């Protein structure tokens, strides 16, 4: 895979549904060795973390109620939430180049449907995705 091919695949994975890095590994593996390459890349990426995380799941199920651990996880959760928000703010910057403000408006609608109204993801996106793509097609 060349650098350009990698960049194109990476950009593609930002838009594909599902875990980004996982999708990238599938596309990368597929380019090199077809379906078998995809499966091997997927196992290589997911396998080791799966074993580690299962061990963590086991430990958490056993000791999750210990007060000291609780307090540490509370701190990490607060920071991790900030990480998600800060990363999101970085990603959102290009949206504001939209003079008509339609892209920020679509992002805001999505935020409200999922984050505030807590509507089911699939029903919300069944409306929002065609709407947002239609808007982009009309404006192109």
């Amino acid at each position: 895979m060349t650098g350009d091919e990698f960049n194109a695949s990476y950009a593609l994975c930002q838009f594909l549904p599902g875990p980004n890095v996982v999708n990238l590994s599938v596309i990368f593996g597929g380019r090199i060795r077809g379906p078998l390459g995809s499966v091997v890349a997927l196992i290589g990426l997911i396998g080791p973390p799966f074993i580690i995380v299962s061990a963590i799941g086991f430990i958490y199920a056993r000791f999750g109620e210990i007060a000291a651990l609780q307090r540490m996880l509370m701190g990490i959760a607060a920071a991790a939430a900030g990480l998600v928000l800060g990363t999101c703010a970085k990603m959102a910057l290009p949206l504001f180049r939209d003079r008509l403000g339609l892209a920020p408006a679509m992002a805001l609608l999505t935020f409200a449907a999922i984050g505030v109204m807590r509507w089911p993801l699939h029903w919300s996106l069944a409306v929002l995705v065609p709407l947002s793509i239609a808007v982009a097609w009309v404006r192109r």
Partner: protein
Amino acid sequence: MSDSTLARLAGHFALMSLFAIGGANSALPEMQRVAVELEHWMTARQFTDVFALAQVTPGPNVIVVTLIGYQAAGLMGALVATLAMCGPSCLFAFYVGRISDRLQGARWSATQQGLLPISIGLIAASGFVVATAAAHNVAAVLVTLATALLCFTTRLNPLWIFAMAALMGLADLL
């Protein structure tokens, strides 16, 4: 651990897989809605814990699904949930990867333009939902805001921030 729990894990995450535009973190509100409110696999606090554990564990973000599956139905649950969350989207990605050379031109780039605000809206919703869940006092809110600011303005490795936040929690400052 009944087979029906495994079937429900598979069904929920297979569906979510195809709607998590922007990555696994885009679906955190849906995961919480399903795991806590709909299926009662875990409490709201346990969900927040599991989110925190997934963030500090090396590996792709999708591993939060493994922990939810583990909490719902043990090791089999972890396996089923992980495969369900990766399966449908991987098949889709494989197919799109094959035809991606033909995916060019104005319509395709307009489609990407249309999906971008959706993924950003979803990740913002995720951040908001987990920030709300973690905001049990003023100090915790400050940690969230400070981390967001640091991530926005610097390239600091978040693990340092997580370590600080964990120590603050341990010292009962949060």
